[in-house]
């Protein structure tokens, strides 16, 4: 019966089977909470009667997800905001830092890609700065900027600049000389050449860099928000861990994955739009 289905359909069926089996195993592996009557004397004395923090079964997570997602934007004070608001804060920070980085990285990458001298001059700095974990900048950023919000954005800026910078430089440097010669024989000026020949020629490489950057930025924001606190999905995870609400922790982990996937998908679309075959 499976034989006459398309590859996509077969894969989808397999995915669903894996999901269901995984969830069932997970559900079965969690021991049920003991009822209060079965508690021993000792447990009653040590407070064991309170709801124990254990890994919740998937059914609880699904219930939690349903609750949260049916009212994602409620705001009941600093420690109790809807998941939608928290994710909104995180996306806002990621995009701010990311676009600032793009604003610097793409023009600078152009310069580095077009000129051997600029490449050689910038290279040592790039080589030293690039391997630094973006979170290592956090204390310095907090001290200099004196603002946790701006510091988080700065950390995103620092982590997303490198892939964009290097890919832009690489893409621009690799533009076929034939195409540049086409621009030259048509007497195009430097700016016109940059926009009508070099940019479209290097666009696939540049967008690949942008896609890598957004992925890294989304990885880093969670850690950054755990450090600076206040708002955001990273803070939410940390806060729920402090509340020992593991159901919420698991739910937010899943949300981080879903949002990351969507951000990546946007750049996937962009990548397809600028791709060309030689």
């Amino acid at each position: 019966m499976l034989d006459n289905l398309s590859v996509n359909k077969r894969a989808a069926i397999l995915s669903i089977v894996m999901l269901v089996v995984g969830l069932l195993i997970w559900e079965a592996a969690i021991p049920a909470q003991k009822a209060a009557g079965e508690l021993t004397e000792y447990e009653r004395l040590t407070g064991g009667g309170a709801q124990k923090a254990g890994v919740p079964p998937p059914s609880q997570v699904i219930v939690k997800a349903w609750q949260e997602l049916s009212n994602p934007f409620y705001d009941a004070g600093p420690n109790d905001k809807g998941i939608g608001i928290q994710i909104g804060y995180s996306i806002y920070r990621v995009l701010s830092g990311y676009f600032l980085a793009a604003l610097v990285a793409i023009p600078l990458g152009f310069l580095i890609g077009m000129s051997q001298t600029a490449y050689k001059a910038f290279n040592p700095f790039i080589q030293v700065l690039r391997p630094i974990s973006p979170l290592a900048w956090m204390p310095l950023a907090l001290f200099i900027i004196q603002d946790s919000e701006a510091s988080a954005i700065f950390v995103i800026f620092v982590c997303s600049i490198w892939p964009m910078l290097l890919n832009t430089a690489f893409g621009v440097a690799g533009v076929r000389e034939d195409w540049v010669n086409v621009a030259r024989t048509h007497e195009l000026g430097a700016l016109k050449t940059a926009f009508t020949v070099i940019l479209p020629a290097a666009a696939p490489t540049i967008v690949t860099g942008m896609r890598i950057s957004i992925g890294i930025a989304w990885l880093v924001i969670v850690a950054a928000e755990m450090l600076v606190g206040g708002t955001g999905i990273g803070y939410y995870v940390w806060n729920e861990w402090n509340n020992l609400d593991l159901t919420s922790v698991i739910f937010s982990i899943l949300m981080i994955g879903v949002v990351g996937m969507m951000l990546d998908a946007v750049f996937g679309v962009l990548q397809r739009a600028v791709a060309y075959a030689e």
Partner: protein
Amino acid sequence: MSKPFLSIERLTQQYPDGQGGTLTVFENASFGIEKGEFVCILGHSGCGKSTIMNILAGLAEPTSGVVKMDGFAVSGPSLDRGVVFQNYSLLPWLSALKNVTFGIKARYPSWSADKVEAHARDFLAKVGLEGDVVYRKPSQLSGGMRQRVSIARAFANHPKLLLLDEPFGALDALTRGTIQEELLKIWSGTEQTVFMITHDIDEAILLADRILLMTNGPFARVAESVEITIPRPRSRTEIVEHPNYYAIRNHLVQFLGQRSKELAGQQSDVPDQRPETVRIDVSETETATEGSAPPPLRAVNT
């Protein structure tokens, strides 16, 4: 004799040879091309044809010497010199139509978008590209189609000088013949001058008013300038019957097969190495007078 439209004066090109010395590709090469002339250049691989063409296009600087067009020294590329590159050099992210409008917009910045597009379609139609094909990207076109887009792009700009680097090199004989005829058709309706590199002797005889022959490098020379004394319009099937055809062809084959080697590597002290004019005309040998230029052999090919 008045200055020709295009004059190449004492052109020398040297490159480092990779072992600390210099490689002289050619030295003091001088020749002229008249307005409206169709000139082909033949020579063995590596003798420096592409190098000469890049200098004519203004894409490369010679080690010494000048190229003058209309009396002015060429410095840098110009819209007056259209180039059809050996590998087509179409921009792969643009459709065939957009590749042609790209050139026209650069040439006529004041034209409206409609006019630019109509002009582009006109020239694409001249090379036989009409309908949906013009919306395809170069990667979706066959080699011959790409070549034609490239030719349309160059011709649509009405350059005074057209430079073609082995434009039909990768095509099969049939497509090649069709495009050759299209090229002649477009060229014969204009005042354009064509300088074309080719490896194909028959193609050169079919197309050219004059064929320049280069000796092997290093120290290559443009040794001879052979006039093609076959009246136009010419067609591939008919020129072989013309009495001059085999005489000219034999001369060219003999040069490329033998004399290009014998003459190679002779470093001469002559400051100006002009090619020797060769006129082969078995039907009117007595009237061929050296030095006086014959009327340009041009007719509209129908």
